[in-house]
């Protein structure tokens, strides 16, 4: 295999390969991994970074004909418009409010579920229950919305049917602003609590069994063990998941909002992303909508970075 010996007289005789030679060798030897990486990098540039460049229309009077680069700059005008727009302010408030309810009711649900699963001894019962409660996570939001719309319908819906048994008047839930948030948050819990419990179950599985054994010897009951051993042991996981949730406050699952809201419920249901969707994609006010999106993305970025910094303090590695 002598032909594989590189013919580079100088470096081979001096015995000390220079930096450039070693760099050349590196690429000659490892070019394949760069080739493998290339499509992914190009993809990220074309589909995720190029739109970031396009974000400049938030500061421009965007015209489809002039394109992103040639539209004239308008500075902060769009942002001034946004913050004097009641419906946008309302969307920001709704986003935060819905996230807050999601946190308040949606966050503890998977933890409680995991703690309960941990108490079940019958293996196949536990397995079956887990299989079922994980399922809704894999169902599309259109289907979820379809089910909710059907179930809460004033005529067809089972909810109103059951209310009828107790002599209650039927309610057209999805047109009532007061009902939107409970339905939305409840649907979220129904869909995600089971799947969310996986992380906590894994944390519980990681608790040293000898802690429980010594507690048994000390005469503790299961309830006490849950409070004195399980919960303190999974507290770091709980904390990290909480930080992630707080970091994602701006991320209300707007697909489901779009599917469930209607003009009658905008006052409680409209979030920033649905507002952007209507203003931008439906009404064609791209620049203003992009400004709203940028505001949302910026706040989200700050929150996520803060959350990541916080989580570094609680776990040895960062979240990502």
């Amino acid at each position, binding site marked *: 295999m002598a032909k594989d010996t590189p013919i580079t007289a100088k470096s081979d005789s001096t015995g000390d390969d220079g930096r450039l030679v070693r760099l050349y060798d590196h690429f000659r030897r490892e070019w394949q991994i760069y080739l493998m990486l290339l499509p992914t990098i190009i*993809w990220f540039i074309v589909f995720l970074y190029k739109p970031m460049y396009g974000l400049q229309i938030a500061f421009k009077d965007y015209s489809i004909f002039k394109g992103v680069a040639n539209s004239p700059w308008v500075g902060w005008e769009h942002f001034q418009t946004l913050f004097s727009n009641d419906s946008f302010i309302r969307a920001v408030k709704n986003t935060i409010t819905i996230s807050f309810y999601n946190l308040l009711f949606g966050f503890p649900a998977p933890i409680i579920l995991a703690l309960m699963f941990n108490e079940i001894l019958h293996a196949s*019962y536990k397995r079956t229950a887990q299989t079922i409660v994980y399922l809704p996570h894999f169902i*599309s*939001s259109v289907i979820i919305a379809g089910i909710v719309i059907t179930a809460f319908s004033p005529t*067809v819906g*089972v909810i109103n049917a059951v209310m009828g048994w107790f002599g209650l008047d039927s309610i057209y839930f999805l047109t009532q602003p007061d009902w939107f948030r409970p339905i939305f948050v409840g649907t979220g819990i129904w869909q995600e609590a089971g799947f969310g419990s996986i992380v906590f179950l894994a944390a519980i599985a990681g608790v040293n069994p000898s802690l429980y054994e010594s507690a048994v010897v000390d005469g503790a009951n299961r*309830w006490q063990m849950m409070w004195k051993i399980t919960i303190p042991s999974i507290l770091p996981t709980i904390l990290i998941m909480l930080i992630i949730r707080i970091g994602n406050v701006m991320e209300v699952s707007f697909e489901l909002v779009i599917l469930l809201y209607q003009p009658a419920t905008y006052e409680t249901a409209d979030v920033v992303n649905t507002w952007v969707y209507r203003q931008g994609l439906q009404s064609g006010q791209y620049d203003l909508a992009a400004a709203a999106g940028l505001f949302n993305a910026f706040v989200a970025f700050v929150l996520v970075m803060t959350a990541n910094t916080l989580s570094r303090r609680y776990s040895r590695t960062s979240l990502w």
Partner: protein
Amino acid sequence: MQRWNLYSQGDKFFAIVVSILIGMFTVATLYPFIYIAAVSFSSGFAAQAGKVVLTPIDATLEAYGYIISDPKFWISYRNTFIYTIGGTIMSLLFIIPGAYALSRPQLKGRRFFNLFIAFTMWFNAGLIPFFLNMRDLNLLDSMFGIILAFAVNAFNIILLRNFFEAIPQSFEEAARMDGANDFQVLWKVFVPLSKPAIATITLFCIVSRWNGFFWAMVLLQSEDKIPLQVFLRHTIATLSDDDEFAIVQTAAGFSAETVTAAIIVCSIIPVLIVYPFIQKYFEKGILLGGVKE
């Protein structure tokens, strides 16, 4: 069960209460599916009278008869399969080599590239610039555009990269000394060793493609390109307001609601069929990608 016999009275009581609560939550999770199936098999009349609670009333297959005679249903069903299979293959073609490259310690600029990819999880340009970009790329109303533009995401790459990084370095080194190049190391060693992780990612891709709705709705105009989810959305949004449909339905034994329910059932069935096979993977999978650098 050995442990059960060692439980005190109080612990037994506690365990029973918890089992009952879990049972109730499980039933509550399952109930909407049973309910929607019951609606789909009920007559339109019974459904609209609000009689359906648990089992079909005036059981009929009329709603299913209506949708299977609608060519748009079949086209959208076919499209969903195209998006799911094509999209998943496309995703794996990007993700597997990309994650492998990012997992190699010898990759120069590895920190930069990892940050380059992870950054997109923290900051996103948003709906409008993404949409305008798709328009500039001439990918509006394009099936290929849908398949390509959602092929990669940072989370899946990082998940697989983490898995690859956990493979002992000596596997790669041994293969290299045996004369394997990177493509051979990846294909003959890493891919077979990473079956669980790749299965997990395949699963995530399949699920997100099968369920994908928002961008398909925004980007696709042609009726012959829309996937099942968008078709379902159109059905829910339009059927109840459609006068022509209202006339037809009174004659037949179905209603907008039973038709919607039937489409929902048809769209869930493939998920239910695949679900048991994938379950063993995703539990491990989400932990792989989760809290780990």
